[in-house]
């Protein structure tokens, strides 16, 4: 063992009480750092997973990011042209030629696509009315782009193909309207179309907004009800790698012109909130370790004061100032490492305890366990912060120790 490290260890083991106290500070700091980080990042990962599962990874909508160029501007490119009072062409809204675009998108590796025509509709039954978002879908394609089929608790989405007047919606909505499987319900659209439809499926996602606000019908039926024949207003996609959505969306938009929005773009403000939340969380838990490192500073400052004679004799013997500095710096690093080791064990214990706690988040009907992140990266981060804090706290007394001039002590005898 290097001599400096040995002296550092001997100093620490001979001041057991102070060493234990400073070690305890780092240990608690590390344990709380890990527990809080695991909880926050676990909830973040759970939230993102829910986002990814619940919403399409990419949505192509019937909009353009920039308005299409006017023919006159194209003809006189670079000319001094100014157009006033332009009125967009009156047209049925929706993605033109979506049927031709589907095979193009489906051919992209790792991409599954389905067309959807969404619009508002009112469900009426026994004098009760409920506004919903009506989604016209192709049931055979929905399995690849949505988990709605997994949430079906009665009937099936595929039943829509067999019964063109079928409708699927949330069990919560059915209970609200006192309806059940096989019952008929009146569906009215804003364009005046009214149809009586039969309930062929009920789902339960656990999210109230979806369970009471979304309904699925056959695409053709939706096109009739919403007065948009041969149109879809969204192409929804799921990817094998959800995190590639941003790049894939850019490629799609470049190819077909319509706005392709990745889930990351759609949730940008939410993602930045998560980022800010992480910054705040890590600042607070790091502050715990910084406060704990004051204990290390205190112990090592005391050791330096008490060991001035030893430092003087070491220096007179031929130890360099940097050798002396390293002895005291090593004490900080040892406390940081030892505190981290015990703290990590305690942190995992806390995380295991938190992992069995059950909660029912607002808006979710299921009781779930607290989401915990078990990644090793947070362990590496906490060790880095703990050792850096402890070494930083040891640096100043160590520097002071390195500046001790042997003669000042030797002249003073027992000083």
């Amino acid at each position, binding site marked *: 063992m290097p001599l400096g490290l040995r002296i550092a260890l001997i100093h620490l083991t001979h001041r057991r009480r102070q060493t234990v106290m400073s070690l305890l500070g780092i240990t608690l700091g590390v344990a709380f750092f890990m527990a809080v980080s695991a909880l926050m990042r676990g909830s973040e990962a759970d939230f993102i997973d829910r986002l990814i599962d619940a919403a399409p990874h990419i949505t192509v909508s019937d909009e353009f990011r920039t308005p299409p160029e006017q023919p006159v501007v194209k003809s006189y490119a670079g000319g001094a042209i100014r157009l006033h009072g332009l009125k967009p062409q009156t047209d049925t809204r929706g993605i033109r030629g979506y049927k031709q675009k589907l095979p193009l998108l489906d051919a992209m590796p790792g991409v599954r696509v389905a067309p959807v025509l969404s619009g508002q509709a009112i469900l009426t039954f026994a004098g009760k009315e409920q506004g919903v978002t009506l989604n016209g879908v192709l049931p055979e394609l929905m399995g690849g782009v949505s988990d709605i089929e997994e949430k079906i608790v009665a009937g099936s989405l595929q039943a829509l193909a067999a019964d063109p007047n079928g409708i699927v919606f949330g069990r919560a909505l059915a209970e609200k309207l006192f309806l059940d499987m096989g019952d008929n319900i009146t569906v009215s659209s804003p364009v005046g179309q009214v149809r009586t439809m039969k309930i062929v499926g009920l789902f339960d996602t656990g999210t109230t907004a979806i369970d009471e606000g979304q309904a699925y019908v056959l695409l053709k039926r939706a096109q009739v009800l919403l007065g948009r024949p041969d149109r879809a207003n969204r192409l929804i996609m799921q990817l094998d790698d959800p995190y590639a959505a941003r790049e894939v969306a850019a490629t799609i938009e470049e190819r077909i012109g319509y706005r392709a929005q990745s889930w990351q773009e759609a949730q940008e403000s939410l993602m930045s909130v998560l980022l800010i939340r992480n910054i705040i969380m890590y600042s607070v838990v790091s502050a715990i370790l910084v406060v704990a490192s004051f204990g290390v500073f205190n112990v090592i400052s005391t050791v330096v004061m008490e060991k001035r004679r030893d430092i003087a004799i070491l*220096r007179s013997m031929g130890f360099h100032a940097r050798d002396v500095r390293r002895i005291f710096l090593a004490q900080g690093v040892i406390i940081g490492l030892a505190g981290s080791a015990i703290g990590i064990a305690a942190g995992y214990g806390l995380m295991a305890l938190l992992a069995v706690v059950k909660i029912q988040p607002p808006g979710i009907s299921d009781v779930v366990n607290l989401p915990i992140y078990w990644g090793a990266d947070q362990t590496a981060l906490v060790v880095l912060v703990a050792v850096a804090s402890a070494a930083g706290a040891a640096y100043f007394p160590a520097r002071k120790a390195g500046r001790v001039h042997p003669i000042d002590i030797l002249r003073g005898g027992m000083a």
Partner: protein
Amino acid sequence: MSEVLRAEHVTRVLPGEVPVTLVRDVSLTINRGEFVNIQGPSGSGKSSLLYLLGLLDVPSEGRIWLDGVDTSGFVEDQLAEVRLAKLGFVFQFHFLLGEFTVLDNVMLPMAKLGRLEPEAQRERAAGLLKELGLGEQLHKRPDQLSGGQRQRVAIARAMANEPLIILADEPTGNLDTASSRNVQQILSEVAHTRNKTIVAVTHDPEFARAGDRIIRIVDGRIESDG
């Protein structure tokens, strides 16, 4: 006898609002195997001269040669290297490291120098301690020893790296008469049988008489040398 230490016109002034001259224009030569005692009244600059000769302090003016090498241009790290390899120190207070055993204290300079393997360091340290009558105390801590025993450990530590010179600052200043005579005998023997140079500052006339030469310092100057 060959020259081992030489000071030429060495002056040490402590800077400050009122500069204090500790050592004034001192020139001397010390040979190998000599037992030199520096005497003088309190505050005359004896210890300051010893620190300069021991390269613990640097002169404001003048030069010091150690083993034929001019140390005047040396930086702090070089001086530390020279002290480690060529000098040994004994102080009035033993300055042993309290948490280390007697054996570990003596091994410390050898471990720092790294010239010997750890086992050889242990053997040499144990051998030195046995020669100084401390063979039974190897694994004790300094606070378990008497004052005289502690000072003998300090002498063993000073001898650990086979230094050219052992510098001692009032080595018997804190000891009873019996222990003082014992330390005096040991240092005398080290000088005369091991051919080590001893430079000691002392107030003790009997200790001074045991040496080969007495340098008397008054007001930072050499008053007499012989």
